[in-house]
C-alpha cells in the first residue's frame, strides 16, 4: 500500500498494524493469532502484536502503547464487550483507525471504530439449536439436553447459551436438564460430564460450547459404556481439527463453525482503512456448519 496517513514513525511506506489479542487461552485463539501473523507477513504489513493474557487492562495498555508507537491501524479482539470508549477516543484523537475482530464492543458511538470483523456467538447458538429442532422434528418424546457451558461470564459462553435457548424454547419437548461449566477445557468437560452422567438419567443430547469440552465429554461417555453420537447426540461449536475428526468418526453429530482464520480478511480491511476507503461497519466471517459427511470432506484441508 502507500503511505499510511498516520505519519508512520517508520517513515517508509510499510503499513504498521497494532494488534491486541485476547490471549492464548485456547487452540482456537492460537490459530487466530497465527492466521493474523501469517497474513500480515504475506501482505507486507508490519505487525505489532500484543497478548493481553485475558485481561482488559492489558489490552487497554497495549492500545495506548500502539498510539504512542504511532502505528497506522489498530486492530483488536476485545476480551469483553464494554469499557472501550475512553481508550478508543484516544485512538480517534490520535487519528488512528480501529478495527474490531472476532468480538464486538457495545459502544454507542460507532464512530470510534471503522468496522467489526467476526462471528456472531448468538447466531452460533441459534444454529446449534436449529439443527436440534430439525433433528427431532415430528417426534414428540421429551428430549433431555445437558449443556456444557464455557467459563462463567465469558462472552461466547453467555451468547451461545442464549442463542441456543432462544431457538429451542419454542418447543416444550426440549428440556435442558443440567447445565454446568466445563471451563472451555477438555478436562473440565470430561469431569463435568462424568458427574452429569451419574446425576442425570437418560441424557439424549449434549450441547457443548466448544469442541474441547465436547471431546472431553466424549471420553467420559465412552468410559461410562455409552456410544457418543448414538446414545447421546452431541453438538459443539468451533470446528477445530480434533473436533472435525471426531465428527467425521460420528462421535459428534454436528459442529457449528467459528472460524479463527480472520487474517486475510483483516489484512484486506487494514489496507482499505489505511487508504481511507469506505468499509462496511459489520463484516461477518465466512462460517458454516458441519455434519459428519461434510466433515469428512473438509478434514483433509483443515489447518488448525
Amino acid at each position: 500500500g502507500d503511505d499510511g496517513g498516520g505519519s508512520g514513525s517508520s517513515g517508509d511506506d510499510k503499513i504498521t498494524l497494532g494488534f491486541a489479542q485476547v490471549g492464548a487461552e485456547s487452540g482456537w485463539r492460537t490459530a487466530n493469532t497465527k492466521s493474523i501473523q501469517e497474513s500480515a507477513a504475506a501482505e507486507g504489513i508490519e505487525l505489532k502484536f500484543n497478548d493481553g493474557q485475558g485481561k482488559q487492562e492489558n489490552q487497554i495498555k497495549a492500545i495506548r502503547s500502539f498510539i504512542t508507537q504511532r502505528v497506522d491501524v489498530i486492530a483488536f479482539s476485545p476480551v469483553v464487550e464494554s469499557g472501550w470508549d475512553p481508550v478508543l477516543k484516544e485512538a480517534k484523537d490520535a487519528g488512528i483507525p480501529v478495527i474490531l475482530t472476532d468480538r464486538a464492543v457495545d459502544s454507542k458511538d460507532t464512530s470510534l471504530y471503522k468496522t467489526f470483523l467476526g462471528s456472531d456467538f448468538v447466531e452460533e447458538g441459534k444454529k446449534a439449536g436449529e439443527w436440534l429442532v430439525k433433528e427431532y422434528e415430528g417426534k414428540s418424546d421429551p428430549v433431555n439436553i445437558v449443556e456444557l457451558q464455557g467459563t462463567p461470564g465469558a462472552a461466547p459462553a453467555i451468547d451461545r447459551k442464549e442463542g441456543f435457548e432462544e431457538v429451542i424454547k419454542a418447543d416444550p419437548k426440549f428440556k435442558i436438564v443440567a447445565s454446568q461449566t466445563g471451563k472451555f477445557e477438555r478436562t473440565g468437560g470430561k469431569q463435568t460430564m462424568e458427574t452429569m452422567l451419574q446425576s442425570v438419567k437418560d441424557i439424549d443430547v449434549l450441547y457443548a460450547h466448544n469442541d474441547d469440552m465436547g471431546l472431553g465429554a466424549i471420553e467420559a461417555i465412552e468410559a461410562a459404556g455409552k456410544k457418543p453420537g448414538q446414545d447421546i447426540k452431541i453438538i459443539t461449536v468451533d470446528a477445530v481439527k480434533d473436533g472435525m475428526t471426531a465428527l467425521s468418526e460420528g462421535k459428534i453429530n454436528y459442529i457449528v463453525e467459528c472460524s479463527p482464520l480472520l487474517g486475510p480478511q483483516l489484512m484486506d480491511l487494514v489496507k482499505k482503512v489505511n487508504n481511507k476507503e469506505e468499509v462496511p461497519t459489520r463484516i461477518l466471517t465466512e462460517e458454516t456448519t458441519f455434519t459428519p459427511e461434510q466433515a469428512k470432506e473438509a478434514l483433509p484441508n483443515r489447518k488448525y
Partner: protein
Amino acid sequence: MTFLKNRLVWPVAMLALLLLCALIFSDGFFDIRIQDGHLFGTPINILRASAPLVLVAVGMTLVISTGGIDLSVGSVMAVSGAMACLIIGDLANQNSVGGVTLAVVAAIALSLVLGLWNGFLVAVLGIQPIIATLILMVAGRGLAQLITSGQIINVQSSPYKVIGTGFVLGLPVSVLIAVAVLVIAALLTRRTALGLLLESVGGSPVASRLAGIQARRLTIMVYVVSAACAGIAGLIYSSNVSSADGNNAGNLIELDAILAVVIGGTALTGGRFSLAGTALGAILIATLDTTAQAVGIPPETTLVFKAVVVVVLCLAQSPAFRARLFRRPAARPAARAEVPA
C-alpha cells in the same frame, strides 16, 4: 496429636455433610458398580478428579512446612504434560511402552529441574518464596505453550492413557499413584527425621541453622519434591484426556492446593504439618466441585457456594471461634464454683 485429630474432625464432618447433600439432592450419586472389571461411579470419579490435587497438595505441604509457598505448581503441571505429549507425539509407535516411559521420565526430569530452579531462588539467592515461584508461574506457562506451540497436542497412546484413566485390580491408576506418593511422603517424613527437620526449619530458620540443620539443602529439596509432585500430577492430568493443553492444565490449582493444606491443619507460617490432613482437604475440595455439579447448582453460583463452605469450615476449625460460640455463657459461674476456699 490429639490437637491434630481435633482439627481434622471438621473437614471430615464437612465432607460428610456434602455427601449427605449429594445423597439427598442427586440420586444415583453413590451408585458404585463394576463395569468392565473395574469400579465405576461418582465417588470413584471424585477420587480420580482429586488425584492431581492430592499430589500437588502433598508437595505444597512440604514446601509450606518450611515456611515457603509454591505458586508455580500449575505451570509445572502444564510443562510436564506438554513435554510428555510432545515426546509421545513424535514417537514412531505411540503405543510403545519404552517410548512412553522415556517421555514420562523426561517430563518428570524437567519438572525436577524446574523445582531445583525454585529452590535455588529461594534458598541460595534468598528471594521471598511467593515472588521466586511467581517467576516460574508466569514463565513456566509460557514454556508450556512454547512446547505445545499454543495448540493442544493430541496423542493416541494406550500406555500413556493408563496413567490417567487405567485401572489396576479394579482401582483407578491415578488414584493409586496419588496414594503411593502420599504414603511415600508420609514414610519419608515420619519414619526418618526429615519431618522433624522440616518442621524445625519452618518453626525458626535461625535457630535451625544454629542447631546444625542444613536449612538450605532441605529448602531446595522441598521445592524439588513439590515440582516432582506437580510433574506427576501434570502427567495424570494430560493422560486423562490424552492431550496436553499448555494454557489450561493446572490453572489456579495452586490456590486449591494451598487451601487443601490449610484445611488439613498445616499453618501457612510453617512448622507442624499433616499430610493426612492435606489429602483429606484435597478430597474435600474435589468433592465440593463435584457435589455442586451433581446437585445442580448453577455455575455462576458455585463460587459463592465454595466461599460459604470455606468460611464455615475455617470457623469450625478455629478454636477461638468455638470458644466464643460455646464457652462464653458458662465460663464465669463454672470457674467460680471451682475456686477453693
